[in-house]
C-alpha cells in the first residue's frame, strides 16, 4: 500500500506492506522492517530494524487521531508530532500546531480551552506585530494571554470582556 504522510511540513512517500506481525516499509526509498505490537488504546510497541545496521530498536509510540481531521497526533519520546494523511479532510496540510499558519490570508485566533475573557487588548483596525497579545482568557485559575502568530491588521474582535467562551471559539481575526 502506498501512503503520503506529511510531518514537519514535509511530505513523505511510504510504501507499506504487512507480512505476519512485521510491517515492511520504504520511506522515500529507505527500507525499514517493523514488528508492531499494539498496547492499550492507542499505543504501539515498535521494534524497528534497518537503517543503522541490524539493531532492533525498541520504540514506544501512541497514535491519537486528530479531532476533525484525518491526521494523527503521534507521541514519541515526550514529543507530540502531528502527521497529516494526504487526502485527509478538514485540515490543511502543514503544521497543525500553529494557530492558523503564517501562510494564510486570515489568522483566526481561537480559544484553546473553555474560559472567560478577562481582557481584550486590541481593537478592530489596529496593527499588531507577531507575538503581540490580543486577548486574555481566564481558565483553570490562570490568566492566559493569546498572542498573534504573525503580524497584521485586526479585522474583527468577536468577543467582549467578561464573556464566557467555549474551546475553539473564534476570538480575533487578523488579516
Amino acid at each position: 500500500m502506498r501512503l503520503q504522510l506529511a510531518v514537519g511540513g514535509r511530505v513523505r512517500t511510504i510504501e507499506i506492506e504487512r507480512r505476519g506481525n512485521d510491517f515492511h516499509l520504504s520511506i522515500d526509498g529507505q527500507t525499514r522492517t517493523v514488528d508492531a505490537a499494539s498496547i492499550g488504546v492507542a499505543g504501539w510497541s515498535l521494534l524497528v530494524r534497518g537503517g543503522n545496521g541490524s539493531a532492533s530498536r525498541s520504540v514506544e509510540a501512541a497514535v491519537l487521531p486528530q479531532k476533525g481531521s484525518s491526521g494523527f497526533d503521534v507521541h514519541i519520546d515526550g514529543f507530540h508530532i502531528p502527521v497529516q494523511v494526504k487526502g485527509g479532510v478538514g485540515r490543511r496540510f502543514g503544521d497543525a500546531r500553529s494557530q492558523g499558519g503564517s501562510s494564510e490570508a486570515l489568522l483566526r485566533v481561537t480559544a484553546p480551552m473553555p474560559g472567560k475573557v478577562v481582557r481584550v487588548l486590541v481593537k478592530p483596525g489596529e496593527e499588531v506585530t507577531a507575538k503581540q497579545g490580543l486577548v486574555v482568557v481566564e481558565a483553570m485559575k490562570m490568566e492566559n494571554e493569546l498572542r498573534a502568530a504573525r503580524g497584521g491588521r485586526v479585522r474583527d474582535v468577536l468577543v467582549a470582556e467578561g464573556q464566557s467562551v467555549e474551546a475553539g471559539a473564534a476570538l480575533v481575526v487578523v488579516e
Partner: protein
Amino acid sequence: MKKVLIANRGEIAVRIIRACRDMGIKTVAVYSDCDRAALHVRLADEAWPIGPSAPRESYLRIDKIVDVARRAGVDAVHPGYGFLAENAQFASACVDARVTFIGPSAKTISLMGSKTAARETALRAGVRVVPGTEQPIDETASEAAVREIADRVGYPLMLKAVAGGGGKGMRTVASPEDLAGALRAARSEALSAFGDAAVYLERQILAPRHIEVQVVGDEHGTIVPFVERECTIQRRHQKVIEESPSPVVSAGLRDRITSAAVAVARTVNYTNAGTIEFLLDERGEFYFLEMNTRLQVEHPITEMVTGVDLVTTQIRVARGDKLTLNAGTCVVPRGHAIECRIYAEDPDNNFLPSPGRIEGLRVPHGPGVRDDSGAYEGEEVPIFYDPLISKLITWGDTREHAIARMRRALAEYHVRGIKTTIPFFQWVLEDDDFVAGRFDTSFLDRKLAAPNGRAVRGPDAEHEELAVIAAAITEITRTPGSAPTASDSTRWRSTARVEALR
C-alpha cells in the same frame, strides 16, 4: 483523632487521605459536581457533595464544608493548600464548630496573611526583609502617590498584592515608565484573585534565588526547622521545579537561614506546619519574603531527604502531641530530592491550560521515584481548578543522581489525550545551567524567551521518521478489509472493550 475531613481536592487531598490511612484515621472527602469520580472521592471512607464546580460555590464555601464536618462527625479538618488553607475565617469557623483545624491559629493565619504585617513580624524577629513599603497601598492611592513611594524604594522593583500568593497580583517594574501599567494589572489581578486590590512595593533583589525553610511547631513551644528547599525555577512567579537541599547553600548558611526561620516562627508562637520564604542574593545575603501558614505543594522533597512525614506530623501536632523529631537530623539532608510539577498545560503553546480526558496514563516507578497524583486513566481533568495533575519527585544520593532518575522517570511517564509539561521538564533537565545549579528566579523566563517562545524542545529527523512509521502502521491497520490489529494483545483488548459496551 478518629476522623478527618479533607477540605480540598486533587493530589493534595489524596496525599492527606494516605497519611490518615497510615495513622488508622477515617477520612471524609468533599467534592464539587465535576469531581464526583475524582480519585480523592474514590479513596476516602466517606464522600459528601458540596455544590457546583466553580470553587466559589463549593471548595471555597466555608458554610457547606463546616456543615459536612458537623454532620459527618469529624474530629478535625485538614485544609491542604490553596482554597481555604490560609483563610482565617475558615479556621475560626472550624473552631466554633468544635472541630480541630489542622494548621496554625486563625490569628496567626490572619497576621502572616498580610504581607506588610508579615514583614513587620520578621523585622521584630531580627530578620532582614527586602527593602520596600511597610504600609499597604490601597486602591484609592493615586498613581502619582504610588510613583512617589516607588522613587523612594528604587527601581527595579516588585509590585505585589498584600493578600497575595502564588504569583498572582505580582508585577516586575523595571523603570518608572512601566509603573502605571503594572499598577493597573496588579490591582486588577489582586482584586479578582483575593477580593482585595491593595498592593505594596519591594525593591527587586538582583539575580535572587528563592530559598525557603519548612518549620513545624507544636503546642508546647517546640519549633523544628528542616533543611532548606530551593524553589528558584519559576515561570511567571510560579514554582515549577523544587529541590532540597539547595545546590548553593553551605552548612553555615543553612544554619543561619534555618535559625532566622525559627526566629520568625517563634515571634508569632507558630504551631503546625509553615514555610518561611527568603530571597538569597548573589553575595549570600538572605531577605524574608513571606510566610505560608500551611502545608506547601513541594513538601515531599523535604520528606524525601529527612524521612519525616510532614502530614502525619501536622496531624500529631494538631491533636496536641509533643514533637519528638530530632531537631538536629531534620536540618541535615540525606541525599537529594527534586520535584517537577506536572501541569495539564501545553508547553509548545505558551503553557495554555489543556483540560480534557486522560486517554492513557503510565506512571513511572522504581527506585527513588515518588508520584503524588490525583489523576487516573479515564479521568476528565476539569477546567475549574489549578491544572496540577501530579507531582513527580525523585531522590538520589547526590543531585546528579536525583536528576538522572528524574530524567528516567519523565521518559517513562506517558499521559495521552491532554498536553502536559513533561516535555518541558525534559528540556529543562538537559540544560547545562540547570545541571550546574547556575540559576536565579529569572532563569526560566529568560530561557523561554530566548529562541522563539515556541517549542521548548523539538523532535529531530529520527523522531519524525518514527512518527511517520507509527502513523503509517496505524493507518493501514484501521483500513477496512485489512486486519484491524497488529497483535493478539490488541484483539483481546478490543474484545474486552466491545463486551464492556454491551
